[in-house]
């Protein structure tokens, strides 16, 4: 089976439909699947439920799908960088489900690992706990959270091989490995496709079993908050 596709349009061909659920990797604008987002925008697919920690910024990343009103519902932990998001949410055009960030990460990990539910302390006594099963373990109260899966996961890695083995770079890893495991189909985009055997098998972050389609992408890699320090005078 050939996993490598020429571009994002080809890799997403036949996978997209209105009303589908898509997981998109990244934290802020770091490690986001820029190529798949553009291809999804171009496809015209709509009424999407997007599971992603954030929703990009105005005009970039998932913000592009938001601006084009393709998103029906977001499942996220933090969306504070996006004015159009706030506008659509406050006007009732957009549904929003907030998850604590660690709960979101674990729900995705659990979904990919075949675990339908689990208990955490996070959010006990807050709005997050409303309507959820409460249970005591060793004298402490926990709430039940459920595993998440998606029709499609789009992830971004640094390097991949033709088998779909992936490695990520620095903090661009974030949600990508769990999402790769939780999609019915996972499309990965990488900066470089290397030959089989070029990646150290001991250092692979996402084993190829989780990746069905792979492309070499082109990335802008925009920086959200450019912070620097001054060089000390010699």
């Amino acid at each position: 089976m050939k996993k490598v596709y020429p571009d994002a349009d080809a890799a997403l061909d036949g996978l997209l439909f209105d009303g589908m659920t898509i997981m998109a990797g990244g934290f802020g604008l770091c490690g986001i699947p820029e190529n798949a987002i553009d291809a999804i925008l171009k496809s015209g697919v709509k009424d999407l439920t997007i599971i992603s920690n954030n929703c990009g910024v105005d005009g970039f990343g998932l913000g592009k799908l938001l601006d084009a009103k393709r998103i029906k519902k977001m499942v996220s932990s933090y969306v504070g960088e996006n004015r159009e998001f706030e506008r659509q949410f406050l006007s009732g055009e957009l549904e929003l489900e907030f998850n604590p960030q660690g709960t979101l990460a674990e729900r995705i990990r659990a979904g990919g690992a075949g675990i339908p539910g689990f208990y955490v302390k996070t959010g006990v006594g807050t709005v997050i706990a409303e309507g959820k099963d409460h249970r005591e373990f060793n004298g402490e109260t926990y709430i039940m959270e459920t595993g998440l899966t998606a029709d499609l996961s789009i992830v971004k890695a640094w390097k991949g091989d033709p088998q779909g083995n992936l490695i990520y770079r620095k903090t661009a890893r974030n949600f990508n490995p769990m999402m790769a495991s939780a999609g019915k189909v996972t499309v990965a985009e990488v900066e470089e496709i290397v030959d089989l055997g070029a990646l150290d098998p001991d250092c692979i972050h996402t084993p190829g079993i989780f990746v069905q389609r792979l492309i070499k992408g082109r990335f802008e890699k925009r920086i959200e908050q450019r912070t620097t320090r001054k060089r000390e005078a010699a």
Partner: protein
Amino acid sequence: MAWDRNQMAARAAQELEDGFYVNLGIGIPTLVANYIPDDIDVTLQSENGMLGMGPFPYEGEEDPDLINAGKQTITELRRTSYFSSADSFGMIRGGHIDLSILGAMEVSEKGDIANWMIPGKMVKGMGGAMDLVAGVKRVVVIMDHTNKAGESKLLKACTLPLTGTGVVDRIITNLGVFDVTPDGLLLVELAPEVTVADIEKATEAKFRVSDKLAA
């Protein structure tokens, strides 16, 4: 005289101990990194997937793949490790992080904290705050004692949606330091030239005064 932002951060740095793994929140807590004493070894965690966070990069050396939880460009150290968000919050939820220092909009005398939402006004989300307050061994809040309207942020009960209940261990404000005890708040330290009477005037929550300060 009340502490300013940097003095609050310097005071908070006294909470650090040798060997600690620490998560610093966004805002004033970030400044704590500037006051880590030279004679102790502290590792900073960034919940987007990094242990051993270094300072901001020199201009021209920014790496879009290397950011902290506030989405700021940072650098790595020789000790640095990277991991997924699931592993990162496993560390947090599993009680492996020694200390979290974070900001707040309100704290109650029972140690409840609200710092993520103002209904009808702010739609941002809790990010990792709920996981941090629930999972980290010790939670220290740094915040101004009063809000912009001059109202106490230390309350009998929080009015805003909660981030966690009974999770705060210590509160450092610009006026002083409070511990959350099973018997309520205990004032344990005053900023220079601030009196107990000043704090009483600025505080809605009930608090007791430590014997240390009575002398």
